[in-house]
């Protein structure tokens, strides 16, 4: 069944049809939540809450882009979580090593199907990008993630965030500039293809 049919059935209360939509979108929604929040556990909660809220609000969906509608819900969930964090800041618990020192990132101990150096570089780069994303104001972050990570065009991103296309354009440019500045600090982590481009330009 196509997406429209599933949406139609889900609006009538068909949980099975809705769950098929969940399976189709859960990776994208989880990725967005993770990139917005920078935390797996929070992203997991936000994703689950998004689908619950979406199911409960299915009858209010008036057509258009279902993806944009879902992303609006998850983005709002993330904004709520970020606001809650601002009100109640917490210190994340890191695992301790044998010497009772905190291990900075447990990802270093993750599974390594590639060579350890490659995994290390990829993870370091991913961490670097995530760190720079975390440094962006949340309005900028959401725009970058919708356009550059989810591949939305400006109109769809504007639908998600309920702002004019011009706002998307200016926020995206400013967000990319900030990311550019931030990533200067992680220069040595960049893969060759990115380094080569920069060396040519400079």
């Amino acid at each position, binding site marked *: 069944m196509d997406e429209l049919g599933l949406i139609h059935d889900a609006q009538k209360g068909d*949980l099975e049809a*809705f*769950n098929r939509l*969940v*399976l189709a979108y*859960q*990776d*994208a*929604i*989880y*990725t967005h939540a*993770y990139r917005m929040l920078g935390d*797996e556990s929070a992203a*997991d909660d936000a*994703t*689950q809450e998004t*689908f*619950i809220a979406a*199911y*409960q609000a299915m009858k209010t969906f008036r057509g258009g882009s279902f993806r944009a509608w879902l992303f609006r819900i998850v983005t709002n969930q993330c904004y709520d979580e970020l606001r*809650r964090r601002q*009100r109640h800041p917490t210190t994340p618990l890191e695992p301790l090593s044998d010497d009772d020192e905190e291990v900075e990132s447990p990802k270093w101990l993750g599974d390594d199907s590639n060579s350890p150096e490659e995994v290390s570089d990829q993870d370091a780069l*991913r961490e670097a*990008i995530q760190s720079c994303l975390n440094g962006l104001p949340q309005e900028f972050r959401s725009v*970058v993630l919708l*356009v*550059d*990570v989810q*591949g939305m*065009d*400006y109109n769809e991103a504007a639908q998600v965030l309920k702002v004019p296309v011009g706002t998307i*354009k*200016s926020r*995206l*440019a*400013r967000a*990319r*500039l900030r*990311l*550019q*500045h931030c*990533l*200067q600090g992680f220069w040595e982590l*960049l*893969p060759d293809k*990115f380094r080569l*481009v*920069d060396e*040519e*330009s*400079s």
Partner: protein
Amino acid sequence: MTSPSLSDRDYELISAYLDGEVDIRQKKAIETRLAQDAQFKSAYEQLSRTRRLVRSQPLLRAPRNYTLSPKMLSASQASPKAFVPFPLLLRTASAFASLIFVLLFGLNWIVASRMMNAAPMASSEVLSQPAQPALVEEQAVQSTGASGEEQPLAKSMATSVPEPKSLVPPAGEFGGMGEGGGAGAVGGEEAPLLEPDSGTALIAPTATLSATLPLAPFEITGEVDIQSEPGVSETPMPETPDLTEVSETEGLIRGWRQNWLMQQILFGVLAVSFAIIAIRVGKRKD
């Protein structure tokens, strides 16, 4: 690094150009500039690299399936209702309290400002009360040319007579006083209204007048045409001997104003404190 010669608008154009979100005219302009402007081209390449780097990040796999079950839905429907009402109630109550405070504060402000405006006039009236106003009023009412419209004028003049015993200045000086003093309100053309049966009227400036003009008790003899005396306001007035009673009243009013201001500040501080407490309590309950 950003190029100092490029504006935010330039970066917006470059960014939109990278995403194919520019129209044909803009596209041509950008491409022309890329061919001619080295700084513009450098900025384009750096932004392009950043964009590709972010886009190179793959979608993550969800750590589990997020499919819903009827049990999950019933649990999620039950839990929010248990917690939502209290913050809502608190916020609503806070909003109403704020609204009432603003209304009361505004009302208080308006009333107080009116009272303050009225206070100097009232004090001058109080000062003039003991000075036999009834006699002058009676005289004004009994005056031969008095009409219905003229009586209020006479009354207002009567209330502004603190000292019945006075000297007799020239008629022109009285006219000058009348024009210069606001509280006396000698605006009518029928100045002889104030003449008693004996043909004289006892006029003295009000306390309000005393603030701007030297006090000068007058005795008016005969008919006085107030407006027909040009330049009389420039005539020097004789000084009054004692203003202590007036200054005491002004001091009282000033003190009352200060008290009122202090009360307003106190109310303001209390209101802000309560608002902060309400917001903090509301946030804790969220």
